């Protein structure tokens, strides 16, 4: 790689699975300390892109370069723990290696979830579980946090809190963040750069630039922007005409 400050670089990545193209000519770069948010409709390949970037899925063609020896913290999209699996938060956070309880407590403190230290994982609320997952991702002082839909299963108020938390973690730890989000309006304040994905990269840039980009408007519909404006004024308001956004709301809620 030419750019020494780059933590992660994808070059012309294509991915075919079972004859279907899931990623098409995707190129991207992530620098140290940068927050990049990937947005896109359902089935756009957001999680797939994350998995390719992490090396969990080899691309059909193209290059994926992670800086040698990089420490990556990963927060998966869903955690299915069978109810028969007796696992406390403490155990969940110490199971990946030699980690002292004090270190677990300090990480839980950073994400504001010390109260669940001894709780069974299955008993956590959506927001608590996301915080615990975030704490696990942060366990080994990562230089890059990869978060797949970090606000999933969290109510709207909790979502913006979580995004603020992620933004604060980046400032304190100076780590880079690559995350997937369903909706741009809540994540706007917490991200440096947005990458709008629909198998290929539709557009990318600052949140402001992306929201006014024709490709973004085409993907999410002109109502998305209207929705954005509505959102900031009245969170309970629903636009009947805005089918796309309603679908997004349902998913996020």
């Amino acid at each position, binding site marked *: 790689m030419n750019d020494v400050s780059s933590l992660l670089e994808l070059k012309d990545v294509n991915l075919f*699975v*079972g004859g279907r193209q899931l990623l098409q000519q995707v190129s991207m770069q992530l620098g140290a300390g940068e927050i990049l948010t990937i947005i896109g409709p359902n089935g756009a390949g957001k999680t797939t892109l994350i*998995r390719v970037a*992490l090396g*969990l899925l080899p691309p059909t063609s193209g290059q994926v370069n992670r800086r040698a020896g990089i420490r*990556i913290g*990963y927060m*998966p999209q869903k*955690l299915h*723990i*069978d109810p*028969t*699996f*007796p*696992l*406390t938060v403490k*155990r*969940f956070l110490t*199971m*990946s*290696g030699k980690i002292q309880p004090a270190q677990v407590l300090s990480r839980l403190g950073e994400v504001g979830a010390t109260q669940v230290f001894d709780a*069974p994982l299955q008993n956590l609320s959506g927001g608590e579980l996301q915080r615990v997952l975030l704490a*696990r991702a942060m366990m080994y002082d990562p230089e890059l946090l*990869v978060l797949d839909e970090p606000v999933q299963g969290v109510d709207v108020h909790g979502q913006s809190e979580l995004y603020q938390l992620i933004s604060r973690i980046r400032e304190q730890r100076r780590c880079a963040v690559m995350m997937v989000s369903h909706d741009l309006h809540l994540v706007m304040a917490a991200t440096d750069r947005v990458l709008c994905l629909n198998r290929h990269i539709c557009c990318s840039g600052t949140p402001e630039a992306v929201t006014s980009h024709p490709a973004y408007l085409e993907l999410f519909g002109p109502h998305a922007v209207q929705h954005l404006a509505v959102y900031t004024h009245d969170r309970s308001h629903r636009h009947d005409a805005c089918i796309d956004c309603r679908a997004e709301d349902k998913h996020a809620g």
Partner: protein
Amino acid sequence: MLDDFLFRALLGGIGVALVAGPFGSFVVWRRLAYFGDTLAHSALLGVALGFLLQINLTLGILVICQLLAVLLFFGQRQKRLASDTLLGILSHGALSLGLVALAFMENVRIDLMAYLFGDILAIGTVDLVWIFGGGGLALAGLLWLWKPLLAITVHEDLARVEGIPVDRINWIFLGLIALIVAVMMKVVGLLLVTALLIIPAATARRFAGNPELMALLASLIGCLAVAAGLYGSFTWDTPAGPSIVVAACLLFLFGWLLPRREA
């Protein structure tokens, strides 16, 4: 004392129950009950193979179970068939193929019931060697894999990102399951192997706050079921394998009546 068939039965049953506890816990946590069934159902094919090659029948079962485990490992990577559909095809296909293959062997007369439901009272010294040798090996393997296997049970991709060789460990784990299924056959038979794996583990869940305690309790509950089942079988002249499973079910029900201590 080893001459006493009842003592050998008890010893063999306890050996199997000790191994079944920790493995059964993973089967429950990872929802592999149907998977275990499929391996067990293929055992009859292994018996046929044993007769065909004139080798030890347990060895024949072991070979077939291992083959099926390999087949399942690759089968679950394809996305065309849902994994329970695939398991259903292999499970019943293997069971039927085993029955048909045995029917073709005209000079072989076997007690089918002994294979379907176990023949614990006929456990000999060689069987005990299989149970304690094979079972001990499987248990040692499981202990060796314990930590990474727990991490994989929580989330495969997360384990991968944290540097655990997930595929290799899953591979070994399936091989170990195939080994214990072959070993457990003698005690409860191929139709009831999964029962002895999952019922004690499910019973232990209510009283365990961490994975290790649950595995240990499952072993103890399994031993209790074996002892109670054998006693019942001896007293009322009922088939031993099913009696053990009935005892396990009763213990499970009894567990629900006790106050829960669950984390």
